[in-house]
Each structure stands twice: as C-alpha cells, then as structure tokens.
C-alpha cells in the first residue's frame, strides 16, 4: 500500500511553474528522497503533500486519505510528523516547554522524555530554544515532528546548513525512525544524504522528476562507477574525441577549471590518460578519482552542477 500517492500535481506562482505535472508513489516503510537544486520545486511539492499548500491541479492521497478539510484533515494530521524548512521555534521557550506544547496538540503522543531521548536532547531540556546551536535546533524541530508518534514523517531539508557532526546525529535520528518501521519523505540537496538514507530517490529539476530509482541504480545509469578529474598546469587539453577514445572511458565532461571522465575501469583509463598527456608535454596540476555519486548523475542528466544549478 502507498503511504503517499499523487498524480498530475501542478503549482504555479505567477509566471513561474513551481511544480509541472508530478506523479509520485511512496511505499509504506520506505525512506524516499526528493533530490534537486534550490528552486527545483521540492519544497512546494512537499508542502502540497503536507496539505499546507493547495495545488492548482492534481490529486493527493496520504495514508489513503485526502486533504478535504474538517474532520478528515484533522484525523490525518494526527498521524503525520512534519518538519518545515524555515520554521523558527519560539526563542524564549525552553526545549521541554516547546515539546510539551506540540505534544498537547495530539491525541496520542510520546512523552517528553521519550521524544527528547529519541533526538538526544535530554541534557538541553531546560535550555531556551534561542540558546541552542543550529544542529540542536534542527533536532528539536524533528522532535516536534516525532512527538505525535507519526506513521509518516515529512522532512524538508533537515540538515541544510549543519556541520558534518550535527548532520550525522540527525541521520541517526532518521535512521532509528525508519528502523522502527516509519515511512519518510525527505527533500535534500545533499547527494551524500540521499545515498546514505534513502531507499529510493527522485531527482527533481524545474518542477519535474527527471529520474527515479534506488541510489545504486541511478548511479548505474552512468554505465560506469568511477569519475576521474584532472586539470593541467600548462599545455593544451586534449580534445573530447581523444579523451573519449581512451580505454574504459564512457563519457567526457569538459569544464573551465577541470575535466571529468566517467570511467568503468580506473586501472586502465588513468595510465592511458597519463601517457596521452606526457606525449603532449602537458603537466598535471590535479588528478583525482572518486566513486560516481548522485551528484555525477545530476550533472550528467542536466549538464549543471547540483549546488550552483
């Protein structure tokens, strides 16, 4: 059974088409990621699904119910946990007071102790929200979403702007929720986050889904598992044709500061590249290889970098 199902979603803001006909089905128990650059329509999409923004067209079904208003909407809200991207909780309330307030809105809920333990904020219980670090505030926001014992959790860019350690702490929180059988829809523009957390990922661009599969399958779309990047200190860069002809190279992406090769077999491609450059008398200023990521998938699909797209 689908936890989320939507078809033909459209949302327009003036001349801008924020969501351009989007279909999605999220299965119960999975962690589903919406991945894309800023402005791709992720937040609009998730807020339509959360029943906070009415779509211009399309059909939304959450846990088998619809956003019809009134009693059905309230019954549905009881079963969801929602974290919004830019909510600032009241600075002058303590962590415990904030959780207690959100808790009071739900019929059935975790105790304050339980939910603070879930997000590891027990020692901050008496601290004012305004005094928390960014990571702690974000964990508190997730705590307010988890307090209702939700079946379905919506997270909109939960780790944006956090340092790596805070990000990992939040991943653990999300992982535990998922481990307990919960369903999650999250948006992110961090590839690493999507690969780490999500069972399936939909890549969004310009209000549409341009690819949807497991992270592994999406990377396999590239037809190669590694990326070799190089830049030259001096000398002319070989042409795209020359590079593409090297053994094991599947694709070439030239860019002003560096050239990236998508490669099936690093151990054959790199020596061949070095031989080619030496023959040209060119000196390297950079040579790096990494496993192909969703970032590479995004660049291959759209021709743009994810961060600055």
């Amino acid at each position, binding site marked *: 059974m689908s936890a989320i199902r939507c078809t033909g979603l459209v949302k327009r803001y003036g001349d801008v088409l924020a969501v351009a006909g989007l279909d999605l089905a999220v299965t119960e128990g999975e962690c589903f990621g919406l991945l894309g650059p800023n402005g791709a329509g992720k937040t609009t999409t998730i807020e339509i699904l959360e029943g906070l923004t009415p779509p211009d067209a399309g059909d939304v079904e959450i846990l088998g119910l619809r956003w019809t208003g009134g009693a059905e909407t309230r019954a549905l809200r009881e079963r969801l946990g929602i974290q919004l991207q830019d909510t600032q909780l009241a600075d002058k309330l303590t962590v415990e007071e904030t959780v207690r307030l959100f808790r*009071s809105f739900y019929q059935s809920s975790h105790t304050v102790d339980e939910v603070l333990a879930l997000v590891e904020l027990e020692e901050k219980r008496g601290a004012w929200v305004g005094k928390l670090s960014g990571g702690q505030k974000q964990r508190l926001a997730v705590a307010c979403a988890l307090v209702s014992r939700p079946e379905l959790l919506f997270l909109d860019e939960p780790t944006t702007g956090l340092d790596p350690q805070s990000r990992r702490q939040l991943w653990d929180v999300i992982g535990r929720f998922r481990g307990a059988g919960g369903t999650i829809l999250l948006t992110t523009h961090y590839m690493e986050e999507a690969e780490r957390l999500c069972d399936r990922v939909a890549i969004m661009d310009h209000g549409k889904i341009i690819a949807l599969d497991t992270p592994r399958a999406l990377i396999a779309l590239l037809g190669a598992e590694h990326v070799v990047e190089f830049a030259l200190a001096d000398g002319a860069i070989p042409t795209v044709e020359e590079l593409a002809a090297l053994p094991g190279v599947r694709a070439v992406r030239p860019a002003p500061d560096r050239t990236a090769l998508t490669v099936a077999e690093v151990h054959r491609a790199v020596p061949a590249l070095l031989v080619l450059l030496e023959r040209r008398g060119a000196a390297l200023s950079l040579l790096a290889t990494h496993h192909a990521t969703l970032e590479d998938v995004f660049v291959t699909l759209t021709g743009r970098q994810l961060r600055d797209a």
Partner: protein
Amino acid sequence: MRDHPLVQLTLARMREFYREPEAIFWVFGFPIVLAFALGIAFRNRGPGELRIAVLRHTGDSALAAALGHAPGLAVTVLDSAAARLELRTGRVALLVIPGERLVYRYDSTRTESQLARLQVDDAVQRARGRADAVRVEDERVTEPGGRYIDFLIPGLLGMNLMGSGLWGVGFSVVQARTKRLLKRYMATPMRRSHYLLAFVLSRLVFLFVEVAALVGFAWWTFDVGVRGSFAALAFTTVLGALSFNGLGMLVASRARTIEAVSGLMNLVMLPMWILSGTFFSYARFPETMQPFVRALPLTALNDALRAVMIDGSPLTRLGTPLTIVTAWGFVSFVVALRIFRWR
C-alpha cells in the same frame, strides 16, 4: 488538564511575554512612570506668588513696601531697561510706575497680569485708607476627583488597555507568521480557535496585574480613589481589553512583516491617543468632530472608566459607552477571523 492545548498555548504566550523585559516595562512600568511624571507636573498648586515690579523712580521704596505687605505678591524694584525686558518676557506680571498718578503697565491678554492688576490695585487703595463696604468671608474647598491626576489616571488606564491589547496580539501573531511558526502550527491538528483564545486568556491574567499596578500606584502616590465598585471597574477593563484584543487581531490578520504591522498599529492608535481624551478632555475639539470622536473605542472606554472611577456610576448607566466598546471588539474579531492569513 495541564496538557490541554489551550492551557499549553496560554502558558507559552505568558512565558514569551514575561521573559521579555522590554515588554514588561512598556506594559507595567511605562504607564506608572507617565502617571508619576504628569501627576507631579500638573499637581494643583493654586496660583502661587505673582511677581510684579516697581519702576525705579522717586517714591518707589514706599510703594514697594506697601505692596510687599499684600499677600501673594513678590515685588522687585527695577530700572526702566530691565523692567521692559522682564515685562516682555513675562517674568513679572505687571509694572507699577510711581508718580502723581500711578500707572499699571501690563499685557491685558494674560490671566496672571489681570490677576496682578486686581491685587496691586487693591493693595494700593487699602494702603491709602480705603475700607471694605461689605464684610466677606472665604470658604475654600477641594472637590475630590476634580484634580488633573483624577482625570488622568482613568485615561492612562484606557490608553494602556489599548496599547497592550493591540501590541500583545499584533506583534506576536505577525512574529509567528514571519518565523513560519503559524504555518508549523497549521501542520498539526491544533484548533485555530485555541490559538486565538490563548491570546485572550493570557491577556486576562496580565490584565489583572496591569490594572492593579496602575490603580494601586495612583491611590498610593496621589490618593486617587475608585468611587464606583471594583466589580464595575473589573467588568469595564475586561471588556476594554477584549475589545482591543479583537482590534489587534484585525490589525495583525494579514500583515506579513513586523514593519507593516507596526505601521498599522500606529495608524490605528495615533488618532485615539490625540482625540480620545486621555490627557485632556475631548470637549476641546470642535462640535463637528464630536460624533466621530465619541464613536472611537478608546473615547468610549475612557468615558466609562472615568464614570466608574470618578463619578462612581453603576454599570447600568454606562450602556452607551460599553456598547460602543463591545461593538468594536465584536466586529473586529469577526472580520479578523474571516480574513486571517494562517501561514
């Protein structure tokens, strides 16, 4: 009970308020400071001593001595340049020029000078032997409730009810909207009515403190009493507070930024600060403006508060002002609910 959303929302409102020192000052401290300053500045002192001058000339000292014996006159002898300056700047009310025929030089448009003219002439004539034709006796009275401070305190109370009613709701609602907190609440099963009702409940708690502080201070410092019943005062202040809460919700119903709502607040409050008879009687405004002035909620509230505190009127005689206050609150609240931007 404690975990009822209405209780939790009300507690949250109260905590956010009393953890904000500035808010505490503006709601509780400021009206007391204002009452104190105005009470001191406009305390009833009577007319005090009148300063007059005698021009330096033959016979000035005898004349000055005669005038100096009269009560309420302070006399100096000045030469002509100084006398002209002091008279022009109003530091002396009247100049007496000695001679065959005495001359009183003064500005007849000034009340003080008119008074000095009467007193000086009386003293001069008596000194030359004029006798009273009729025996008279003075009987001095001070009517309680007739002082400026008695007029001022109910007005300050009304103005404070308006200020904290409007700001308390308006600022918090718009802040919750700009911080996307309102939207976050909408993502829970919270009832909208609970959210709005929490403002009213928390307001009532602080209202008690606010009214008690100002009325208690006025009683303790200036001996301003409440002639009507405390029940009538409580009823009137609660009604006023609720009415301005409604107006606050209306003002905050659409605004998206603190700047916008601040502007709207001032737009709503400024005419009432001036027109509604807080610091001086609105009877001073022209007759054509009176219907408009009387229809303002703060005018009606001030009238009702003065009637209770100064005249000791029972509520039954305050039908008109209390109806005006209620109507403003009710209409604002209904309109606010219809147009409220919940995100």
